[in-house]
């Protein structure tokens, strides 16, 4: 019997190696897999390359991972935020490498990795600093830049519910990078609020089919600090 559920975040992350490339879901804190990140900090892997939209908020989640000096390089679109002071300090100290990618190119490069695309021409970034040194081409009178896929060893994502086949559904705008990151990593690990019996998730409504997910771990509701008291 297929059973992708794992008993704990600790067990789910046991084989993450030093130097690994990790995609971490979320847009700010929405969709950020905080329980997995906490377990990753405890696990100890270092020299990580992290792919995320941002570079951490406050001192929890991704920011805590940065603070623990586990991250060699970050690939993101929007590191600078009002509460990104941990990243800011590391960056100014030259202790972290930054690859800044326009958000749409970030999403498309992740999607390309999952879809087997070798490279693609995009208009985004053409003529800007972020396309410097990159191949360009004019197609039907419009200018494009060639961008390559971003693959990862692991993806750490947050979903709302999952089953033993790895099927996932998300909650509102916490979906964001989860589905595409799941498709782009060799091993995708989803933190979910609830593991449900196979068949509970409507086949019309599953957002990430289990083929893209290797491990599913339920985290305590109490752990999901970002859950609202009342739903808006």
């Amino acid at each position, binding site marked *: 019997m297929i059973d992708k559920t794992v008993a704990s975040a600790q067990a789910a992350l046991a084989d993450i190696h030093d130097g690994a490339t990790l995609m971490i879901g979320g*847009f*700010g*804190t*929405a*969709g950020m897999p905080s329980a997995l990140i906490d377990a990753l900090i405890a696990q100890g892997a270092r020299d990580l390359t992290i792919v995320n*939209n941002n570079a951490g908020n406050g001192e929890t989640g991704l920011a805590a991972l940065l603070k623990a000096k586990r991250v060699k390089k970050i690939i993101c*679109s*929007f*590191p*600078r*935020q009002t509460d990104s002071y941990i*990243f*800011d300090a590391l*960056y*100014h100290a030259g202790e972290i490498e*930054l690859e*800044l*990618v*326009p*958000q*749409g*190119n970030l*999403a*498309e490069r*992740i*999607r390309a990795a999952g879809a087997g695309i070798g490279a693609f021409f*995009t*208009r*985004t*970034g*053409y*003529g*800007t*600093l*972020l396309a410097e040194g990159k191949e360009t081409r004019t197609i039907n009178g419009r*200018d494009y830049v060639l961008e390559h896929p971003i693959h990862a060893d692991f993806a750490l994502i947050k979903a709302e519910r999952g089953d033993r086949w790895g099927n996932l559904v*998300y*909650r*509102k*705008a*916490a*979906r*964001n*990078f*989860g*589905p*595409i990151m799941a498709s782009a990593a060799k091993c995708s690990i989803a933190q979910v609020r609830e593991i449900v019996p196979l068949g509970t998730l409507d086949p019309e409504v599953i*957002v990430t089919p289990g083929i893209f997910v290797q491990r599913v771990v339920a985290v305590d509701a109490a752990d999901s600090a*970002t*859950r*609202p008291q*009342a*739903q*808006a």
Partner: protein
Amino acid sequence: MKRFTREQMATRVARDIPEGAYVNLGIGLPTTVANFLPKDREIILHSENGVLGMGPAPEKGREDPDLINAGKQPVTLLTGGAYFHHADSFAMMRGGHLDICVLGAFQVSVAGDLANWHTGAPDAIPAVGGAMDLAIGAKSVFVMMEHVTKSGESKIVTRCTYPVTGLSCVNRIFTDLTVIDVTPDGLRVIEIVDGLSFDELQRMTGAPLTLSATPG
């Protein structure tokens, strides 16, 4: 000197957003346009983080951390809205499906080049987000900005000195002094704040302007 207030600017931008338009409002000043959309028009707001049909901020205490806008502020979803993932969301932006986006700017050039993501200062941490995707992707790009910097320099320029976000992408500029169309023939003024002459406006603007034959 008289200037359009921020509310007047937002109202003016909102007036140019027609019924049924799909619109993305950038972080900062553009976000405020949402509060001035005519109530008799159904306008569908897109948020880059996977939301179409974004509604206003929730009541205090009803915030949901899983439902935020591009600026990470809590929002709501209108009846008829939908959620989707990031590649689909940016496909909407990059594939030319948005009718209008409204962006802030450091500078806009005569050619419609936009600079709004980076001052180029050596110690600044660069951050771009979805600005470059919006600049090249929306059918119409509106810029909303002060006409001059705090030190009095024109933000409308012959050539951007800040790093650009996109080339030849801006269609209309809304400042606190004027509304200007970016055309193949140059910058055409279609509206000026009351009490300011075209010549005075031209003197405060770092690129040549022409007066539209049919000012709006």
